[in-house]
């Protein structure tokens, strides 16, 4: 078998059933269940302390769940330690061994598997090539930049042909530009190797860009699982809506097909039959649209701040009584301009 032959790679699904993890009195994970499909790029997204890293470490076997089961392809691996699984793990701080060269770092996993010298050589070269780092085998970690170190760390995880790739905030120690290029590279590698990958991040933009599916977590619970479009446009609750991207929230009441904002504005609700009751209306800044003339009900206000974002402009609009809205558009306005806005896409969250 050639070292670069990847067709024989196993594809793995991960099934998580009612995982509970307690650290003393703290419940880090509360009865979490997830299904991660074969060859899927699955992201655990949430603010710090939400349990996403604990869940990833439980999948790897670094943490033993207090309760619940984890399956790799229907095989129960809840109690198996990491060294008995075939996983690739990428750490936030790279975790390269400072006393070993790049070559020695990457070759370590193969040496543990008692591979022949020529096989190791070929495979290490293949892995470093995968991450675009040929010819630096003899360097020590501290002679390299953060981005190079993290790519070596990815190569070290890939070299053992893992069933599953687990990445724990791999980009959060890097600068903004490098983060963007490296996340594209990670996604390409995952696609070309047809790997199942579980990716932990707190950066919602990163999650939306590279994931097949996202699980949004908070306080040890999964709030929503879905493809990026659903997470963005149809957030399951106000927390998800607020955590992902920019959002407008208007508190008010739904009555007779109208939304009565508590500060006096009234909106006609279109699209579907809305249930009546007290609710919060959620709308993304780009789903607002300016209307020239007052036709029916719309939200009126005046621009108090203009943010220039290049092709887009974002406006902060005062709609009275200390309420503001964000609106994104290509059109140019000045601070102080009075405008009327209607809402094209919205979600209602009932109290």
């Amino acid at each position, binding site marked *: 078998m050639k070292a670069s032959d990847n067709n024989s790679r196993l594809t793995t699904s991960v099934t998580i059933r009612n995982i509970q993890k307690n650290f003393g009195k703290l419940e880090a994970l509360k009865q979490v269940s997830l299904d991660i499909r074969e060859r899927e790029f699955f992201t655990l997204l949430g603010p710090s302390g939400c349990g996403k890293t604990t869940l990833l470490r439980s999948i*790897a076997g670094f943490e033993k769940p207090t309760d619940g089961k984890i399956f790799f392809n229907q095989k129960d691996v809840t109690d198996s330690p990491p*060294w008995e699984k075939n996983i690739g*793990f990428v750490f936030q701080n790279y975790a390269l061994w*400072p*006393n070993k060269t790049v070559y020695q770092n990457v070759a*370590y996993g193969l040496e543990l598997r008692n591979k022949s010298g020529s096989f190791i050589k070929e495979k290490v070269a293949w892995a470093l090539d995968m991450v675009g780092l040929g010819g630096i085998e003899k360097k020590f970690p501290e002679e390299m930049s953060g981005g190079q170190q993290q790519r070596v760390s990815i190569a070290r*995880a890939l070299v053992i042909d893992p069933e599953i790739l687990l990445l724990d905030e791999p980009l959060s120690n890097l600068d903004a530009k490098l983060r963007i290029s490296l996340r594209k590279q990670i996604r390409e590698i995952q696609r070309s190797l047809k790997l199942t990958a579980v990716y932990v991040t707190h950066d919602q933009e990163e999650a939306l860009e590279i994931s097949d599916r996202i699980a949004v977590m908070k306080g040890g619970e999964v709030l929503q699982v879905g493809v990026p479009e659903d997470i963005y446009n149809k957030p399951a609750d106000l927390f998800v809506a607020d955590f992902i991207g920019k959002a407008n929230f208007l508190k008010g009441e739904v009555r007779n097909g109208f939304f009565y904002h508590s500060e006096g504005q009234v909106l006609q609700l279109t699209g579907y039959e809305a249930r009546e009751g007290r609710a919060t209306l959620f709308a993304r800044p780009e789903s607002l649209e300016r209307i020239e003339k007052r036709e029916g009900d719309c939200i009126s206000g005046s621009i108090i701040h203009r943010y220039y974002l290049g092709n887009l402009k974002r406006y902060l609009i005062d709609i009275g009584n200390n309420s503001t809205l964000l609106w994104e558009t290509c059109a140019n306005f000045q601070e102080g301009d009075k405008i009327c806005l209607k809402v094209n896409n919205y979600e209602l969250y009932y109290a």
Partner: protein
Amino acid sequence: MNFRWKLLNDPWKIFTIIAFLLLTLLVVVSQIWIGVSSFQRDGGSFTVRTEKGGPRLLLEEETVSGFTLDSSCDGKYLVRQKKRMLYTLNGKAPGKMDITSLNGESISFMPDDDGGVVISAGPDQLWISQKIFSGLFEKSSSQQDLEVVNAEGKNITLQYNAGAFLLFSDRNKLFTLSNYLTFLSRSRYVTAIKNSFIVMVFSTAIAAFFGISLAYLYARFKMPGTSLVLTIVTMASISPPFLGAYAWRMLLGGSGLITRFLGLNWTIVGMHGVIWVISWLVFPIVFLLTYDSFTSLDHSLRECSMSLGGTPRRTFFFIELPLAMPGIINGLYMAMMTSFTDFGTPYVISLDLNVLPVLIYKEYMSEVGGNLSFASTGSMLMIFFSSLILTAQRFYLARRSYASIKSKQPSVRMPGRIRKIGINAATAVILLFAFLPHLTVLISAFFEWNVGVMTSRFTLGNFASLFHSNLSSVGVTLFTGITATFMDFVFGLGIAYVIVKKRYPVVANALNLLVMVPYLIPGTVLGLGFILIFNQPPILLTGTWVILVLAYFIRKLPYSVKSVESALYQVHSALEEAAKSLGAKPARSFFQITFPLIIGGIISGATLSFLQIMTEISATIILYRPPWKPMTAVIFENTIDAGADFGLASAMTVLLMALLYIPLYFVTIKARKAKEVRIESI
């Protein structure tokens, strides 16, 4: 069953339990024994003998303790203990006496193992033994054994050697507070406590004055030869602890070189000498810790104060000094502990100056075979005072917390011309004082000594006699030192790993506390505790090399554990996890990943432990028995009395210094390299 299987399956847990039990035995049990023995007291004893030629008994007045003996006019003695009438002793003939019980019970008797007799009347027991000082021409065959020849009712007749001294003792132990009451009321003991504190306070103050000011100057001004000064002070910090004492005595003692040369009336023997010598003993500790503390200050804090209008003086007192305080306090604490527990210096410099460690040693020496109750009482008081000092230090440090921000560039200034000359002169004087002992010893080792006085004849004879008759002690020092260091290495590594990475509930915390206890047990006290627990079956170790190794092992264990701990904290746990994720089992990931990263730090730590073990004296002096006699004991023996062979002591010290400074040189080089390869790069 399941539990047992799990325990056996986790080697770290087994190790934890073994380490816990071993430490409990060596540290806790031995200290508890000291504690118990400090509350115990023999019932008392007295010695009598027969008057020469006559039947009357004579009491040796100065031997009486715990009993009251009144002589009646007919030559009888009335024996009372705590106002209870016990017996009368009545001399019948040379080597014969009647003992009558007065407590209403009849007397029974039985021989004991040492050729003596135990008599008992109801609850009152007396051990009787005889000691014969044979005259020069007497035949030993005429000795009469101690025996009971007649016993009826309340009366018993005892036969013994006519000229013998008879020791009557009540060996039943009583629990009592009287040891403490005696200790704190008799002037001999109270003076020892007072002296210990005087020595501690003044020595620390002198060392602090020189150490802190010199350290500040070297931290702030760019001086040529800074690293040389640091190396020299580091060398001074691991000198044999009593080296200064006997070198100064050679120079300024009663028949010292300088004293005789100048015809001085004044000598260094006395409290002032002890304070002076200990000051130089602890000066390097204060200097090195203070220097570290000043150089690691973030210099922007200082510059900030200056930019706001603070004068250099104000900045020093209100910004730099308070920020450096944790390191300084640490140095002062170590200096206080060292000067408080130092045994060698006061003993060598001034035989009749009692400080606590010397007192304990003397009590121990005079009470071998006894119950050591006063030595134990002194030990308990020493531990009590040491704990107070430690508590004060912890209390001070706990109230303030400083983030230790390492500055990238140390803030050094170029000194002016005059300042530079001043600093150099001060350095020269201070280093001269610190190294005068070393020079003295080095020179004196090559001259002939005659009854404690150095002659002007050059010789290599001191070394010849060392190699001829005392080479074995070099072997003992190296063997016990290496064995103990190896044990420290193994247990230090294991215990630190358990504390940092395993964190077993309860056991790991207990181990963490336990391992720091030896830190505040003075060497003398540790030695005494070992004598108490290891001088009887089932563990009879006194007089063997094992007991020395165990003592050295325990004394240096806290340092060993702490040095591995700090090395482990620098190795991020992700490094081992990365190996595990690639398929390495825990033992393998530890030995292939973590171990190579921490080994450098551990080796320098272990070498320093080894060097300190080689100069250990306070526990050694209590525990060693020939033929297991370490170098420090040889030096010590040849320095304490006036007519001793100073030449041999000097030669031995020169050899010891060679054994110390060569490894130290390699360690400092290694430490410099280790700094270049930064372990904490992640």
